[in-house]
């Protein structure tokens, strides 16, 4: 069974704030839920399915269903870090296609900035079987991605200046987003001169730490057709787990080598059909490797691909992260997945900022990477289109 065209994203909402000092995480989940439902023209009483991941407090979807006051016939707590929310769209589409629900609400929210949590995921790793073999070597999140970058440089000649081009493109987009955490444009030189955090990654190779959140509403075709708001069909989905593989890890690729082709096959499209891409950007290296793995360029040629404004909207080879992405705009709860889908929906609705709106944006891709490039990750790819 293919879910192509059997579910639509009818509502999308990103919390406008990046620092939220006096609210609870569940309160922010509630605010983004209300925002996405209002965007769709629906209400809380229409929701019959709810999806959340490790950032949701308490007993996940059970606690949140009660807190929000939802009456549900379907829930999903799938936790794959920052890619969770893209996988939730796939799972929602599957559940809708199977007739288990009609209106699925997905939320992400967290307050790492106000709580001083710093970079990192929501923690549930206390008793993980790998913990004593990885966690006691000062392996910060950045250091893991730095090792992936170092190996990419070694095998393919990728340079720090090429990685910096990714931040430069994100910043050039963020200057048009009044809600972006960082709105200043930067140069390659400024990235290279920023503080070295974990060699070879600099401060400006890293995403921002922000409070906030976002929500999506995924609905059946029958519901979508009754709504006045333009909804976005889910055309293709792909997911893969990549892990350490008995200690034979290859740091130069991500799970996108599997999730990408699956999504393209389901959509009946190829990378050349994609006009806009939201690419998970926890760090610049995440973007570079993912672009190669999704087939936008040959393996090892990502550095060339992103150079000379390759990712800059509206006229680069592949405009990416036109909201400023996790590198500049928002990385709520230290996991940016949902904002990737939200900006793709804006592009397909022709509602991105005019300075970065891609003309005739018929097909868009959103990709999430959850976990760590240096160990295990969940990779989720979505291909979205325009309602016909």
């Amino acid at each position, binding site marked *: 069974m293919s879910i192509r065209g059997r579910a639509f994203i009818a509502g999308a909402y990103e919390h406008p704030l990046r620092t939220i000092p006096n609210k609870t995480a569940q309160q922010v989940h509630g605010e983004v839920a209300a925002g996405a439902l209002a965007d769709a023209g629906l209400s809380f009483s229409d929701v019959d399915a709810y999806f959340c991941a490790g950032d949701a407090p308490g007993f996940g979807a059970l606690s949140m269903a009660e807190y929000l006051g939802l009456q549900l016939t379907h829930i999903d707590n799938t936790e794959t870090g920052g890619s969770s929310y893209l996988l939730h769209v796939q799972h929602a589409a599957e559940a809708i296609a199977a007739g288990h629900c009609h209106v699925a609400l997905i939320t992400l929210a967290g307050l790492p900035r106000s709580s001083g949590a710093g970079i990192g995921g929501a923690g549930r790793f206390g008793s993980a079987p790998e913990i004593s073999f990885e966690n006691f070597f000062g392996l910060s999140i950045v250091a893991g991605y730095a090792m992936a970058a*170092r190996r990419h440089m070694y095998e393919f000649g990728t340079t720090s200046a090429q990685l910096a081009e990714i931040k430069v493109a994100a910043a050039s987009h963020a200057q048009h987003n009044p809600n972006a955490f960082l709105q200043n444009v930067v140069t390659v030189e400024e990235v290279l001169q920023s503080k070295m955090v974990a060699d070879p990654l600099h401060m400006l190779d890293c995403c921002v730490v922000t409070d906030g959140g976002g929500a999506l509403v995924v609905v059946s075709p029958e519901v979508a057709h009754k709504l006045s708001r333009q909804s976005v069909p889910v055309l293709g989905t792909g997911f893969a787990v990549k892990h350490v593989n008995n200690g*034979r890890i290859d740091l130069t690729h991500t799970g996108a080598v599997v999730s990408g082709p699956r999504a393209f096959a389901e959509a009946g499209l190829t990378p050349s059909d994609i006009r806009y891409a939201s690419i998970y950007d926890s760090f610049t290296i995440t973007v570079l490797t993912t672009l190669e793995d999704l087939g936008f360029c040959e393996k090892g040629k990502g550095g060339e691909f992103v150079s000379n404004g390759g990712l800059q909207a509206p006229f680069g080879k592949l405009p990416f992260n036109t909201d400023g992405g996790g590198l500049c705009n928002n990385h709520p709860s230290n996991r940016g997945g949902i904002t990737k889908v939200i900006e793709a929906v804006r592009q397909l609705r022709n509602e991105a900022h005019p300075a970065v709106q891609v003309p005739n944006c018929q097909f868009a891709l959103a990709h999430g990477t959850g976990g760590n490039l240096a160990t295990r990750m969940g990779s989720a790819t979505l291909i979205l289109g325009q309602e016909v």
Partner: protein
Amino acid sequence: MSFLPLADVEINNETQPFWDGLRNKTLLLPRCTSCTSVVWYPRAHCPVCFSTELKWEEMSGRGTIYSYSIVAKGNGRWKESGPYIVAYVELAEGPRILTNIVGVAPSEVHIDMPVTAVFDSGDDGRVLLRFTSVSAS
């Protein structure tokens, strides 16, 4: 020996021989008697062929650096340890394992550098497997 923090590792029935080995300055890993894979990290079955017939075997302790990062400033107990080197070392027997490189200046470390095991231990019996340059050992 390296001045980097040691840790209270979680030891269980699947991993006990590994930690006992490190205390005796030997690197023991399970090898699958069915498909011959060396298993990393240690566990009760072979993740390649799913056999539960494993045998603990002493490794050479030799390897090369697969990748590394020089961390300027760590988190938590590692806050004052920087700069330090986090690395993946590819053991001669196959597995690529997360570790620290010690006794090597950050400016000297490079991919493919030959390294050898260091059994980094404290007076309290805590021990971690780290590596140093073959020429420094």
